[in-house]
């Protein structure tokens, strides 16, 4: 018997006489928290990420300020002009490692947890470009901010890869001391537009 058939047989025999579960109890919803965007800002900053809020017309300037002259890569579908940037055309990991920063869009922002989620569409690029450079500048529109995790899950397409980012990379592995920045970008700068 193949391993597959054997395991499925064992599972069935382990569960013989066990009835399937009834309907699942619904997961509770968070209560209304008032100003979602303010909550989002507070919770993102709580992870020691930087948040800049600006009007649509000032997006380019806010991004330039966040970059402060760093070398930068952008995804091919970015709807914004970043002077001096390299557009990703399948750069190798080594090439990305020599670039300081990346500018991307996001798919959704979660207020309750201060999380931004990328689903790696052309305005966010493939996963590697928002991972290897040390500074991630991420542009989020206020209209993209939702209350909580279930709202984000409902919006996302599971067929696409997704990356959920809550603050910069961190570890508490040495004596439980929190250190920002191990392998992912050590600096996260969210530009909140609108």
């Amino acid at each position, binding site marked *: 018997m193949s391993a597959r058939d054997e395991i499925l047989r064992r599972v069935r*025999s382990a569960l013989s006489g066990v009835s399937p579960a009834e309907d699942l109890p619904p997961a509770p919803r968070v209560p209304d928290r008032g100003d979602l965007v303010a909550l989002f800002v507070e919770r993102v900053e709580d992870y020691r990420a930087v948040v800049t809020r600006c009007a649509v017309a000032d997006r380019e300037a806010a991004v330039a300020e966040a970059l402060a002259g760093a070398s930068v890569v952008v995804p091919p579908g970015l709807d914004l002009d970043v002077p001096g940037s390299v557009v990703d055309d399948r750069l190798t990991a080594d090439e990305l490692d020599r670039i300081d920063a990346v500018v991307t869009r996001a798919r959704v922002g979660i207020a309750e947890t201060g999380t931004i989620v990328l689903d790696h569409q052309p305005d966010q690029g493939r996963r590697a470009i928002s991972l290897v450079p040390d500074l991630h500048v991420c542009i989020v529109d206020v209209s993209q901010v939702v209350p909580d995790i279930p709202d984000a899950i409902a919006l996302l397409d599971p067929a696409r890869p997704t990356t959920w980012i809550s603050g910069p990379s961190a570890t508490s592995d040495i004596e439980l001391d929190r250190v920002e920045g191990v392998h992912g970008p050590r600096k996260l700068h969210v530009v909140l537009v609108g």
Partner: protein
Amino acid sequence: MSGTFVGMPAFPTAAREALGDTQLRRNLAHATHTIRDKRAAVVAEVEDWEDLRLAGAAVKEAALRDLATHLETLEESLTRAGATVHWARDAEEACAIVAEVARSHGVDEVVKVKSMATGEIGLNEALEAEGILAWETDLAELIVQLGDDLPSHILVPAIHRNRAEVREIFRRRMGDVGRPAPDDLTDEPAVLAGAAREHLREKFLRAKVAVSGANFAVADTGTLVVVESEGNGRMCLTLPEVLVSVVGIEKVVATWSDLDPMLRLLPRSSTGERMNPYTSTWSGVTPGDGPQEVHVVLLDNGRTRALADDVGRQALRCIRCSACLNVCPVYERVGGHAYGSVYPGPIGAILNPLLNGVADEQTASLPYASSLCGACFEVCPVRIDIPSVLVDQRAAVVDSHRGDRVPKAEAVAMKTAAWAFSDSRRLAWAEKASGLAGRVLGRFSRTTLPGGRTAAGRLPGPAAGWTGARDLPAPPTESFREWWDRTDGGRT
């Protein structure tokens, strides 16, 4: 194959050694209390935490009760998404599958994301035997690997090492296996983390094959989920050309939306954060983005054994958050190594016997590594009633000794108790004997317990197992019956 460390002594022996290590106890107390407080604060923020726990438990329970269907669905959706699905009955089969994938690409090294399942099956050792080096990339796992050590906590496997020890390990060992630690390495956690970043980056950039586990596997979409903090997970899941994920069959949830209660429960219970820094989800192969060859190994290795246990089945709901470790008074004092397994603490005390059976002495000692205080059940995000399963597993251990020629001391004691309690004359006699023993033992004892009663010292013979870890109050010199007779129920 078992998930326990080979050659480990049974829990009581290992625990006594650990208790003698004051540095270990100090590190553990600091760590468990810090995480415990953080967890309590972020859990208190959620108004309906108890309802969320019910929802989380229900998602996992429902998936387990119809596991065969969900596994078939998962296989189908993974295959449709371009992944190759393998099945492994045990550790050996799983390791062989991973080794074969690595060999087919001609590599002599793989990078690894921290994963309990690959620790359980001893993957690193199996690969090494095939001439393939497996680099752990999680900071704590790196410390454990470079220190030739064993993990001691699910979440922070190097919880037993302090910063000075970590610095020493990095200075001594990094150079042997890659980029050495810088000369000016201090014991600042930020500096140590920086050294790990440099050391591992060259490995990430050149790795062709990565190995991961998964926190969840979504049946209807074929999506795997990895929850992490450092970004080493993202590196392994994104940069290499080939990805092999070893996934226990109990990781399945039915639908994409079932991830909701789980992703709300796990980070708060685990690291005590609203959300962990990074969560990655992927479904098979995404053209032009990430690994273009994706393998998933579905692992049994004792899980179907646990699934067949009506009381113990709930242990398979575990999402490895480690909250139960951090609140456990036993774990806090003895640490993870005493459990002799990658699964320590309260969950380890039930999971190891459920996965492996209680035939060997080491595993059989685990259900006793608890005071049954119930703190673990209260914090468990998926409401595993660990104390009830512990009691049930104790019964299983006792049952497994029924046929023994030499009965266990405990079994003799219980039989004698049953014999004495079943007859009032015998009981009176037993109490007198105990009163006599009390006078004798009281004379030999060194300690006085709170309340002024003397404690018996370490008893000789089979009873040593009990008194070695506890102060046994010396029996009172007069029994209640004797007192009643003497004073006419207190009237004289």
